[in-house]
């Protein structure tokens, strides 16, 4: 059974009281299986963070269903919601912002204790924390007893992942979790996610960075203006991009060993910088339908 199944989820936001409705998500559907990393790729305004928050029940969907292990999450209340959070957790972009700056960093563990481990004695609790920290390759002596500003970004993010591991988490929503980290630590966190995935965790990896998505994920979903434009097996989507938007993205990605195509025309003249997809936000509330162009690879009709 798939861990997460999203079916025709849409989200509309009202700009101001009585203002226009803008679609942040349009008819998004896909699933994640246990032990699978699905990357949600999108630029700003694509709705990827909104989808992450909907899955985490931080904001409600306007329409469509989100099913976790077969049950609809929209009806969950109180204790059911607590149980949901036992299995589904999130880590966000700004590690420092996820900590309440006036408390010590390990308070993020303490927050869970009262709700989820009320009967656990102190030594058992310490043991649990230790094993969670080991799973994320953190030395307890380095991070316990410290304030968030005394830890590096990498340590902060690992601690937040350790917090998720304290519970019996089956789906992790990782929203741009490494974009604020130094390049030399990013890959270590990615490798950590991969090792967690190998032990059965399903991960929704939200990012705007295509090379990260390519490195870490099994399947990729590309979002644009709230709708899916292409999705499927990562190797196929990146190797054989069919949608013009995906192609555009891939040509714009700066690479270390290859210059941007098309190259300069030479002798100092260069074609005026293309304005880029600064198209106005989509006003249609529906999404173009997806068709299968090869096995495990779906493309949306190009309506741009």
């Amino acid at each position, binding site marked *: 059974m798939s861990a997460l199944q999203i079916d025709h989820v849409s989200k509309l936001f009202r700009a101001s009281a009585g203002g226009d409705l803008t679609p942040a998500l349009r008819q998004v559907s896909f699933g994640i299986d246990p032990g699978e990393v699905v990357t949600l790729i999108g630029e700003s305004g694509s709705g990827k963070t909104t989808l992450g928050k909907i899955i985490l029940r931080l904001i409600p969907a306007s329409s469509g269903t989100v099913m976790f292990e077969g049950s609809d999450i929209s009806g969950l209340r109180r204790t059911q919601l607590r149980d949901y959070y036992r299995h589904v957790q999130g880590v966000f972009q700004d590690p420092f912002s996820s900590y309440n700056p006036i408390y010590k960093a390990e308070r993020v563990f303490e927050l869970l204790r009262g709700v989820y481990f009320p009967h656990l004695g102190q030594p058992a609790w310490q043991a649990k924390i230790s094993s969670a920290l080991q799973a994320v390759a953190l030395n307890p002596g380095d991070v316990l007893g410290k304030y968030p500003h005394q830890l590096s970004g990498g340590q902060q993010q690992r601690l937040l992942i350790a917090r998720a591991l304290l519970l019996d988490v089956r789906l992790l929503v990782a929203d741009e979790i490494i974009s604020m980290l130094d390049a030399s630590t990013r890959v270590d966190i990615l490798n950590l996610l991969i090792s967690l995935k190998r032990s059965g965790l399903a991960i929704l990896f939200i990012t705007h960075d295509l090379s990260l998505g390519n490195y870490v994920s099994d399947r990729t979903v590309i979002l644009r203006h709230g709708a899916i434009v292409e999705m499927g097996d990562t190797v196929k989507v990146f190797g054989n991009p069919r949608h013009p938007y995906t192609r555009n993205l891939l040509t714009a990605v*700066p690479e270390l060993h290859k210059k941007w195509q098309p190259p300069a025309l030479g002798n100092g003249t260069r074609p005026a910088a293309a304005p880029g997809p600064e198209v106005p936000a989509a006003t249609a509330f529906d999404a173009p339908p997806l068709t299968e162009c090869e096995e495990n690879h779906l493309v949306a009709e190009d309506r741009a």
Partner: protein
Amino acid sequence: MSVKVENLSIAYRMRSGDCCPVEGVSFTVADGEIMGLAGESGCGKSTLGNSLIFMEGRMQHLGGRVVVDGQVLPIEDFRAMRPYRMAKVSLVPQYAMNALSPTRRISKLTADLLRSHGVREGDVLEEMKRRIRLVGLDEDVLSKYSFELSGGMRQRVTIILSTLLNPSLLIADEVTSALDVSTQRAVGEMLMEFRDRGFVKSVIAITHDLSILAQIADSILIMYAGRLAEKASAADIVNAPLHPYTQMLLASLPEVGVRYDTTTLTGIPGRPPSLVNPPRGCRFADRCPFARAKCAEAPPFVQVRPGRHVACWKVSQGWPEEAPKAGPGGGPGGGPEGGRA
């Protein structure tokens, strides 16, 4: 030579002590050259870039000088730098695109900025419009408020504003971070275009993103913990890095086409040293797999081949490529996030 920095040192006053994010830095940027200044957070690149034009209250000039077009810049004197700012040296600060006042139209912001530098708006208005069209924006951007523009448009407007008086040196601090990939390309190409057309003579592009620099920069200067680590042409840095830090940094960058099941990348274990009490010798030694006893002495930033400068004993003394099995500080210290300060 357009820009020459000689032995520059800048200190930063903090409550926990003085730290020295820029120490003994020397480099040159030729006319028409885009030099990338790369490094990770806390390495001092932003402090270095900003010190060339504007010494913020807590920054102190400890020594060294900056020469632009043959003139020594009085960087330690805030008032004396006024005539140079925007006309000779210009800065696009980090987060500039978010710093545009939301209550004034772009045209008003421009007029204010120009007036404060003693330039009449009328004289440059036509040129500004021309440049706005050049980068693919519409002229009516001038009559808009900043929040009506997207991030990419704001960034481009900021760069146009900063280069309106055709400065000799443009310092662009993280101008492509926080932008979408396609806009990054547009802004990167815009910098190159402006350099090609002579709107700016030289550019120092400060960023942590080496792949952007591989696209737009002619040369790259790598900084680590307040000191220079390596300088070479962009192609050399990317294809044949010499300094171990550069090598390990490049080895940790995922690229499109690289997947975990085919290639496992590794990061650099440990953390950069604190700049309040930095180690005496090579600052990378405790994370470097090649470190030896000699590294307790700070390596000078020297030219090892034509066009290649490195601050590393291994390179300048020609040590072999294999890392020693056990050595002072050699090897990662207990896990990727070992507690080494």
